[in-house]
């Protein structure tokens, strides 16, 4: 980089500059990638499905409890987390919806986007043209990963906002009772909901990196998506087998539900820290594996 700075400083204007794009150029690339991803019908359909989940849950709870009884008969084991609270406070629909979508729906959507990111381009024959532009493979990879992360955040927020809207329409809103039994004002509850959405989005970092790595392995977008989603399902199953307790703390979905710890009083950081740490580790390991693969690979398509 120092060389580039020296030459850039030495010849202001043109010269060495075109081959070494500045940070602004990367932003432009990122913007065009994000724009392209979110303009796809496929992406919009995924988001629509995600937005539909809270609506289904909300209506189901509303119908089920039409006679005034509480939801979630039989205690905590009877349904998704927080379900019994939804009738008292619509905000809990946000938490329930995230707990429902986090195990499969959300990571599946991420798997589709991440798996398609490079393999899809290769499949369509556009990867070569992307590389012709003086972006550099590392930069392109980073931009693709950033786009996937942006989708993680948007997908989570779509679920959360749709749940908030449905919850506000169908159920009363008010003070939020935390898991520990203490109550906090609604405004603070909203803040916690926002924090939870961010934690959920961060929880998807690992699966996004895995998907990106798989995407560098193949030229078929479908194969990459299917592998990512299949891997996710396999890992989720492994995470439920008690005999595998020894390896479970290292599986990326293991601490996903720890976002609920934000609803304790005081907040219990242990699981949250482990979750974020594990996601960062997956992101680094699979991100660098994707980098190793992508920067040394022969791109023919």
């Amino acid at each position, binding site marked *: 980089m120092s060389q580039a700075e020296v030459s850039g400083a030495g010849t202001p204007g043109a010269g060495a500059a075109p081959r070494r794009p500045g940070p602004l150029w990367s932003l432009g690339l990122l913007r065009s990638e994000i724009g392209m991803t979110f303009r796809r019908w496929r992406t919009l359909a995924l988001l629509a499905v995600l937005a539909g989940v809270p609506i289904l849950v909300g209506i189901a709870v509303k119908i089920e409890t039409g006679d005034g009884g509480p939801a979630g008969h*039989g205690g*905590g084991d009877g349904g998704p987390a927080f379900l019994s609270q939804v009738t008292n406070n619509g905000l809990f629909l946000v938490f329930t919806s995230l707990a429902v979508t986090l195990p499969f729906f959300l990571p599946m959507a991420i798997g589709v986007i991440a798996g398609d990111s490079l393999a899809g381009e290769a499949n369509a024959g556009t990867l070569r043209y992307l590389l012709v532009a003086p972006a550099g493979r590392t930069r392109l990879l980073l931009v693709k990963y950033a786009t996937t992360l942006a989708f993680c955040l948007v997908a989570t927020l779509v679920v959360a906002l749709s749940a908030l809207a449905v919850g506000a329409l169908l159920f009363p809103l008010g003070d939020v009772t935390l898991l520990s*039994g203490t109550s906090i004002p609604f405004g603070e509850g909203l803040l916690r909901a926002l924090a939870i959405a961010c934690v959920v989005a961060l929880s998807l970092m690992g699966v996004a990196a895995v998907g990106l790595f798989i995407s560098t392995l193949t030229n078929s977008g479908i194969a990459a998506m299917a592998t990512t989603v299949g891997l996710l399902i396999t890992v989720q199953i492994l995470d439920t087998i008690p005999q595998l307790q020894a390896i479970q703390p290292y599986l990326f979905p293991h601490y996903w539900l720890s976002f609920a710890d934000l609803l*304790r009083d005081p907040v219990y950081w*242990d699981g949250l820290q482990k979750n974020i740490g594990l996601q960062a580790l997956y992101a680094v390991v699979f991100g*660098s*594996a994707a980098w190793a693969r992508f920067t040394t690979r022969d791109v023919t398509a």
Partner: protein
Amino acid sequence: MPRNEPTEVTDGWDGGRSPRRRKAARYAVPVAVAGVAAATIGLVPAFAGSGSPDLPKISAQELIAKIAKSDVQQLSGTVRVTTDLGLPSLPGGGSAAAFGGDGQGDGPKGSDEASASPQNKLMELASGTHTLRVAADGPDKQRLSIVDKAAEYSIIHNGDQVWAYDSGSNTAVRSTADAHGKDGRGHHGPKGLPKGLKNATPQDLAKEALKAAEDTTSVTVDGTARVAGRDAYQLLIKPKQSASTVGSIRVAVDADNGVPLKFTLTPKSGGAAAIDVGYTNVDFAKPAAGSFSFTPPKGAKVVDADKERAKAGRQHGKDIKGFKDRKGLEGLKGGDGPNIIGKGWTSIATIKGSGSGLPAGKEKGAAGDAGAFLDSIGQKVTGSFGSGRVFSTRLVNALITDNGTVYVGAVDKQALIDAANAAK
């Protein structure tokens, strides 16, 4: 980043090194990251656990005195409870919880309350690993929460009120502190609970263990340790009576203020600790006052435990079973059992039965199945007392004779049979 700049620019293979070597070097990055992470995960706990701080020598007597005069009123922290009593695990995942817990499902209360009942929660602690959060501010304000996945079970004691709140079923159970004290001695389900749960803190466990230490016990100081980031002495307690199933008890005591920080009970049969209760995190500052106030949330189902007392009486028979398990949880014998034979570590609790011997026989409908199930986990024994079944766990053994008398204690099988013979 600078290293790969040429590639970014040219995407060519003209770097001077062969592509193969470059490829290998790049793949080394993820491998190295994974390796460093694995090493960190593997080694850091090992180093953290091996720290034995240098502390002035102290005698066992002085250490016990330190515990006794420890006057810590305010603390908050996280407690990790790991129990491996060797209770048979049941299909459906329930293991120990099914013994006391499921029995209540057909009680006078509905399933919602059953899951919120303290007894049930207590049974859950009897197997597996659980995280508890505790906070205390003087004798009148305590709080204990069992941290579950996306749920929490809290017991809040403030003045004369004791609330239990289960976020999973959104149920709150109210009782008065007065009644709860009485219930600590009795066996009424819901109230026995808060007391039993409070006993799960290292302080109480250590106190109870020391109570049992008379001439039957050897107590020594065995080195130092770091627990929850604090320097601690290790107190080693070993029963002298050979019939006891307890191998040793280790209590880590804070070198500063004498608060027991960790309690580990290892059965004589060896293996993993049967009971391991310790702070993973402790703070001796005053907890926030708000943590001790509780008002039942809107929409929560409120159960008045005092009014349930009459009903709970009907559950007496079943609760005895739960009670027995609670003793197992605390790893203590003697204490407040029905009828105690012997003393010290080998004391055996006796519950005179009438009629049908097996507790499960009382649970209608399921009697046949339960009998077959008991046969599969119990071992038939005979003696001059007649015959019966012995149920073994890693720590507690129980002999249920055919005429319904129950002998239970942390003693080996032979001691139970001897006790039954002697009682005849």
